[in-house]
């Protein structure tokens, strides 16, 4: 088998691997926490993905890496930024003029893609991690809410508690005040997700058709629904949203002419 291409996305929170065939279909994947050993984690994730479909590294024609740890993946032949990879994955599923909103573990990206698939412009959040997955992880922990339950809890909310600060640390204090005032946990959790939505909205006018990508919307899809309510129009969630970076990297690996 020689028409398999791989993408490795070593993100701030999770490392993702996607293997695709000549038909651009995902044939295997793996997701695991990044931890502190980027190279080791990437290798384990790749081995697991390969093993799940009965392949070895020699069966993969080309591998590209992306994400914060992209330069630590020694078995990848080239690197591409997360912006390039999420753009490519989003355009694969929505081959038209779109605006991609990628909510990641440590940063958010808004990418405007032209009709021909070319990136017109992109923005990343300022250096503060407010409004990212890290914010939700931190504040959920403060409330003893497992991150896996955030989506379900937010959906149980009777109203959305308004969060006044965009600072993660201040928000933790603010939560205490809301609890003391008798607010219910689901309503506060909805407020936290809403806070992330507000951070996204203030990054860019978010024109046109919106496609949400990344691990946060994959696990907390209510975020996309709340964004949709703010914008007054639908927000699509990319299929396999958490794998989008790795999938995009694999597509770019397939489409990049050799030699690199």
């Amino acid at each position, binding site marked *: 088998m020689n028409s398999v291409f791989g993408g490795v996305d070593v993100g701030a929170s999770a490392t993702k691997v996607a293997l695709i065939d000549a038909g651009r279909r995902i044939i295997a994947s793996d997701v695991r926490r990044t931890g502190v050993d980027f190279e080791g984690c990437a290798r384990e994730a790749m081995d697991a993905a390969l093993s799940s479909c009965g392949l070895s590294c020699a069966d993969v024609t080309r591998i590209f890496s992306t994400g914060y740890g992209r330069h630590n993946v020694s078995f990848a032949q080239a690197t591409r930024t997360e*912006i390039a990879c999420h753009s490519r994955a989003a355009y694969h599923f929505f081959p038209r003029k779109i605006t991609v909103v990628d909510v990641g573990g440590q940063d958010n990206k808004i990418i405007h893609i032209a009709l021909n698939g070319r*990136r017109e412009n992109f923005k990343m959040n300022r250096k503060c991690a407010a409004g990212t997955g890290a914010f939700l992880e931190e504040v959920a922990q403060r409330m003893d809410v497992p991150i896996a339950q955030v989506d379900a809890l937010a959906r149980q909310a009777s109203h959305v508690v308004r969060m006044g600060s965009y600072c993660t640390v201040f928000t933790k204090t603010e939560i205490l005040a809301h609890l003391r005032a008798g607010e219910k946990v689901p309503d506060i959790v909805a407020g936290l997700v809403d806070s992330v939505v507000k951070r996204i909205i203030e990054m860019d006018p978010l024109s046109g058709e919106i496609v949400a990508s990344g691990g946060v919307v994959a696990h907390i899809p209510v975020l996309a629904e709340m964004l949709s309510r703010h914008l007054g129009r639908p927000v699509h969630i990319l299929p396999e949203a958490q794998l989008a970076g790795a999938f995009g990297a694999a597509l770019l690996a397939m489409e990049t002419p050799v030699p690199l």
Partner: protein
Amino acid sequence: MKTEQQTFKKINATKQMKEIMELHFRELDEAAKTKSKKIAWCTSVGPAELLRAAGFLVFFPENHGAMLGASRMATDLIPVANALGYSPDICSYLTSDIGSYIKGQSPISKAYPGISGPPRPDVLVYNTNQCRDVQDWYNFYAREFNIPCIGIQTHRGVGDVTKAHVDSISAQIKALIPTLEEVSGKKLDYDEFKHVVGLSRQCTDLWKEVLQIASNVPSPLTFFDGAIQMGPAVILRGEQRAVDFYKLLLAELKLRVKDKVAAIDGEQFRIYWEGMPIWGKLRELSTQFAELSACVLASTYCSSWVFTALDPDDPFDSMARAYTELVIVRDENYKERYFEAEIERYKIDGMIFHDAKTCPNNSNNRYGMPERLSKKYNMPMLVINGDLNDLRCYSEEQARTNIEAYIEQLSEKKGR
């Protein structure tokens, strides 16, 4: 895109630049120790010509601030000033310099053995054209040393520079003279003043030519080179040795143009840098851009010491005009026209705005400028969050990803 390490092109004239800079610091140190000459501290675009003509040796604390940043001493020293009530949100040149003074640690002593640090001043002279922070900075030292602190209050948000602007600044420059004469114990030598302004004009004309040589394709000069080579234009303007140095540098760069020597091998992208340098990361940034075959070749910052209005036959009014024509004091419309001209002059592919946390006056991205220019030129723009000196405000990994993605995008735009 290249992935191998780019070889930096060494500028031979740097040796002479270092020599005259060292001589300058040693003269100041000698004067401070022996009291042979009076010393004035002056803001970077303050009335240095007047001070020289009044018999002072001139020291520029902003240059010291840049040295604190480049040596990465700043980040450890800023908290010392923060603890004294100088906010981490104000100018990090100010906070790092005051921290340096309190701790008695200076990059001058590391660069020039035998010199303990900045020379003790006899008078402090500012022009608020850079920002209001300079007067607070100098007033700190006025209290410490019990010496006069005098200055010029600039106009801000200036559209066209009018006679009213010039008259007001000119009058303020003249009003400095009695205090300067009292401190120096000498009358201002008007002929010397005209001579100094003439030398400053020569320096500025040469420096402008050095910067604009980057309009050649490929560019023989990078912004990072400029940030180093600008030293004499800031601290030695008005002196013959600055003029001599820029003649030498210009000749070397002209030879590069003649021989088609590029500052960045295989230059593919021509980038404009708007905003302050991130002094502690110049090396890392210049390496990253070089690896991406991107030449950051022009900046507003380095052009901030081009004063073409200076006229030795009309020293007061021409200084007033020159120091009010600066981009930093102009209104948003003027700045937009200025950036448009620069984009066209240097045949720019992309523009990076550095949003410096502690330097709002030099952060021109904050009122929609990148968006307006992007629309006009169909050119993507990039904003990087950071700071001139306070590296606590800079996320290196995020900046690197931003830059890499930006060059990827420019590459796609060029169809590469």
